Each structure stands twice: as C-alpha cells, then as structure tokens.
C-alpha cells in the first residue's frame, strides 16, 4: 500500500452537494411532511365527492321530497340518516346541503379575498390619507362582532334578492345574499395582513426599480408586489373557507340564513332545539359534517402555513 499522501482530497458521495431545490419543490416537501395536512386534504376531497358526486346517486327532487307520514323517523336502512320534521330523507339533504354549504364557503372567500386585497393593497401602498380612511373603516368594522353584523344585514337585506337559476337548478336568492354579507364582513383580517405586507414590501429595491422604469402604480401593485405576498393570502383564504362555512352555519341556525327549500348544513340545524330529545339525528349529522369540513380545512391551513412560511408561528 502506498504511503504517499494524497494531495487532492476525494469527496465521498454524501459530502457532494445536492442540486438546490426550487421554491415550489421546497414548499411541497415541507407540506408533505405534515401528515395531518395530507389527512385533512384527503378528507376534504372525500367530502367534495360526497356532496357533488353524491348528486349522481340521489336526485334533488328526492332530497326535497317530503312525506309527513314518515316524519322524524330514526335512522334505518331506507333512510340511513333518518328523516326530518316533514319526512325528508336527511342523508339526501346533507348531500345537497353540502353542495350549497361548500359553495357558499368558497364563493364568500372569493368575495372577501378580493375586498381584503383591494383595501389592504391600496392602504399599504398609498399610505397617508387613503391609508388612514381605509384603516379607520376596517377598524370600525372589526370592532363589531361578525355575528351581529351578519344578523342585522341578513334581516334587513333578506328577501331583496330574487331566486336565481344556476345550472338548471333554482337557488334561493338568500344564497347570494349570504355569500355577499359573509364576504362583506370578513375581509378585514386579510386587509390588515395585506396592508402589513405592502408596507414592508414597498420599500424594497425591486419596487424602486419598477418605479424608476416608469411602471404605472396599478401594475406595481398587482404585478410586482402582490405576487410576493401570496403566502399569507393563500393561508388566510384557506382558513377563511372554514370560517365562512361556520358563519353560514351560525346564521342559518339562527333562522336568518339560507331559506328553504334550498338546504344547507346550517339551516338543517334550525329548530334542532325542539327535537333535541326526540330526534337527535336531525342535527347530529349536519353538525358532524360541518365539524369534519372545518377540521380538515384547519389541518390543511396549518400545513400550508408551515409549508409556505416555516417561520410563522402556529396558533
């Protein structure tokens, strides 16, 4: 064996550098590590299949079909979730109710995200008087608990929107109303976050560079700064869906939300009180479905938050 000292160091395989991962790959990797987030995503997908896929097995007419002779029947083979006060099959109603609830959740979030981004971006970017006014309004609305605003608005704008035809089905106008008022009362949280991001990002050099080359403000806001704060927007929007579904459930539970015959998980709980003892299946299944949805969205949101920004704190 030679005793010559080797002058060129030999690097063993594990000391070789691995090629750097792109941001998307890193994020995806971090997300995959979150077992719960994956679990939540799967449950959500299943719930979507249940609500939208279930429509292939059960017609809407069946869901609305009422036969008072079989009202308040306990779960049986024919009606696995039982029947409600006027004899409708609860399982079918949870399928169609789920469609509306999930739909409301997602569209309300679209409304509140748009509003939140607009207010936050304008306030954060322009600062000064614009910021002051927008933030005062935001604060004012934040100071009134959401539920109260929802109740008042639902009551006083209720009935003003006509039923609409949507993909061949008749949707109660109250659905649109609920989407608008949920979106209209939940945008403030996102607005504050977006504003904070804009405040810090607008001082950065890339904004200075854009301005120096004559880019218009609108372009700077939406094409340059906004793409950089996607992470908190995505997380807030995801968690916002859970919040919207809950808000819809609360307001429908109180009787002021989506009106019959359109079913939602929330309004299936209306007057559940009265049948608490005699027919617990009336409220149990819709409430359980709501819980599962919110839970899996929370899992997903947690995972997204960790994946997109590992330094933020989980609450």
């Amino acid at each position, binding site marked *: 064996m030679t005793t010559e000292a080797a002058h060129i160091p030999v690097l063993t395989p594990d000391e070789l550098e691995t090629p750097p991962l792109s941001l998307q790959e890193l994020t995806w990797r971090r997300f995959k590590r979150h077992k719960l987030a994956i679990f939540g995503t799967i449950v959500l997908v299943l719930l979507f299949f249940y609500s939208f896929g279930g429509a292939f097995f059960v017609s809407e007419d069946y869901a609305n079909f009422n036969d008072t002779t079989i009202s308040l029947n306990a779960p049986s083979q024919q009606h696995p979730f039982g029947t409600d006060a006027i004899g409708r099959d609860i399982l079918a109603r949870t399928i169609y109710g789920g469609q509306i609830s999930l739909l409301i959740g997602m569209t309300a979030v679209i409304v509140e995200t748009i509003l939140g981004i607009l207010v936050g971006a304008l306030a954060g970017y322009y600062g000064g008087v614009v910021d002051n006014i927008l933030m*005062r*309004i935001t*604060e*004012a*609305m*934040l*100071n*009134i*608990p*959401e*539920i*109260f605003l929802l*109740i*008042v608005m639902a*009551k*006083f704008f209720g009935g003003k929107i006509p039923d609409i035809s949507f993909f061949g089905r008749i949707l109660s106008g109250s659905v649109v109303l609920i989407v608008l008022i949920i979106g209209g009362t939940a945008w403030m949280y996102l607005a504050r976050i977006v504003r904070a991001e804009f405040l810090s990002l607008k001082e950065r050099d890339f904004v200075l560079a854009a301005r120096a080359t004559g880019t218009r403000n609108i372009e700077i806001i939406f094409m340059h700064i906004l793409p950089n704060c996607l992470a908190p927007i995505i997380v807030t929007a995801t968690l916002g869906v*859970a919040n919207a579904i*809950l808000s819809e*459930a*609360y307001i429908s*539970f*109180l*009787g*002021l939300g989506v009106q019959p015959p359109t079913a939602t998980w929330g309004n299936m*709980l209306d007057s*559940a*009180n009265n049948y*608490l*003892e005699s027919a*617990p299946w009336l*409220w149990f299944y819709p*409430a*359980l479905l*709501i*819980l599962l949805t*919110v*839970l899996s969205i*929370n*899992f997903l949101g947690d995972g997204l938050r960790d994946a997109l920004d590992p330094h933020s*704190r*989980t*609450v």
Partner: protein
Amino acid sequence: MGRYILRRFLQGIPLLFIISIVLFVLMMNMGDPIATMGGRTLTRPADRLRLTRQLGLDKPIYIQYIYWLVGNDWAKVDLDGDGIAESTGTRHGILRGDFGTSLVNRGVPVIQVIAERLPNTLLLMVASEIVVIVGALLVGIYSALRQYSAFDHFITAILFIGYSMPIFFVGLLSMYIFSVLFKRWGLPYLPTVGMFDPTVGESVGQVLLHMILPVLTMSFVSFAAYSRYIRSTMLEVMSQDYIRTARSKGLPRVSVLFIHALKNASLPIVTIVGLDLPFLLGGAVVTERIFAWPGTGRLFLDHVTRSDLPVVMGILMLIAFAVVVFQIITDIVYAWLDPRIRFEA
C-alpha cells in the same frame, strides 16, 4: 407611559365616532326612520308630518346625525309648518343615553330594555372567561412542559378538534349528553332552559345550576383555542436564551417556570384575552338561543326578527363601545406589563 395611555384614548374617540356614523347610516337605510326615532309606527300623513318635524327628520342628514348624537331638545322645532320654529324637540341624543323607545315593548326606553337583560349576559360572559383563562393556563402550561409525551399528543388532538367545532354543536351535544342521556340513564341531569326553574324559584343555586351548560358551551371553543396558543407561547418562551441562562444559574425549576417563563408568556396572552371580547359576545347570541337564556344576545335576536331598530341600534352601539374600550384597556395593560414599553430607553 402616561402619554401612551392618553394617545390610546385619543385614538379611540374618533374610532367610536366613525362606528357611530357607520351604524347611523345603516340605520337610516334600514327601516322607517320615523318609527325608529319616534318609537311608534304611524300611518296618518298628518301625524307623520308632525312627528317628522318634532324629531328633526326633515333636516339635512348631517344635522340629523347631530340630533341623533346629542338630541334636539336644545333646538327649536317648527311643528305646525308655518316657518317659525317655536317648540322644543324631544330627543336627548345617544350621548345622553337616549336611544329612543322600543317598538316592540311600546314606549319603554331602549336603555331600560337593554339594562334588564344585560346582567344575565354579563354573568355568562364573566364566568366563561374565568373558565377559559384558568383552564387554558393549566392545560396549556402542563402540555408545554410535557412536550412529546402521550398526554401532550392526546391533548393537542382534542384541542384541535375542539377549536374547529361550531359553538352550536358543543351546545347541542352537551345538552344531549348531560341532559337527555343522563336523564335516560337515571343520572342527575343538568337543566337546559332559562336561568332558573320557575317551580323552584330564583336562587343562587338554581342560577348556578342552570349556568353550567351555557358556560360550558360558550367557553369550550375559546378554551381550546387559548390552550393551544398558551402551549405554543410557552414552548417558544422556554426555548429562549434567557431561560437557558436561568437554568445555568442553577435556579430551581419552579422559579424558572413561574418567574422567568410565565412573565414573558403573559404578554401575548394578555393581548389575546383582551381581544376575545367580540368572539365571546357572538358566542353569547348562539348560546342564549340554544339554552333560552334571557340575555342581551337573545334580546338582539328577538328584536331583530321583529324589526325593532332602536333596540338593535342600541345594542350594536353598546357592543362597539365595549369592544373599543376593552381594546384600549388591553393595550394599556400590555404596555404596563412590558418594561420595554413602560420604560422607553
């Protein structure tokens, strides 16, 4: 520090005004202003005209806002339409406590209607907040200390589920278990309706008994959320360098925990507790509905469904005021607790 307090108060006042403007605008567009301000619905045109003038509703909107704030009993009103103002107005304005009279409870001042129910809600809210804080501190701290243990994992899972639950689910479920099922199983069961059993009469014991389920309902979700927050705050604090320093000085564990760690952890906790008021109020509405508790939440619901605007506006203004004041108090307490703010370098 004194300047900070002053500044916070000064910031709060314009905020309240803005809220009042928002609510005023809302109110003007939501119903019949004459009925709202006058406390009664009138149909005869002559009556309406008279009342309109008396309430100052024929004036421009900014004048109306001022009348709403401070009343019009200091101004002259032209009642008979001859162009000469001779009578005095009848409104005192909300700053002097005149929120009008209820449309549902004829003639009763809104303030009185609210005052009758307010203590009941306060009872629930204070009790819930105590349960939440004590419970969350215990569970959060213990869980943080026993990180990675089976207990910690189990509790974390339960808390996660808990804070994803809608309040009415907690309410209905607890009602079902502790009242219906317990009764069925022959166990002593909890009451679910109202503040006391009318046949027994209103006593401290009765009220306490009836409070159990509503307080449980109102506090469960918040308790879950705070426990998680306190746990993560404690974990973060415990990993700080100054804790390592404290341990390296050989200080006993208890001392490290309660003096060094907790004092730092209490700062974010104070913030969260202070900002929870809106959520608690919202929860009161749902809870009072489920348990038929005669509080302001239920009052709000009842009077909204019956379009009793004066009461509705009164409650909203009251809530907004409470939230703003509470926020200011929270900020001040936080500033006082954190020496970095209290003694600015």
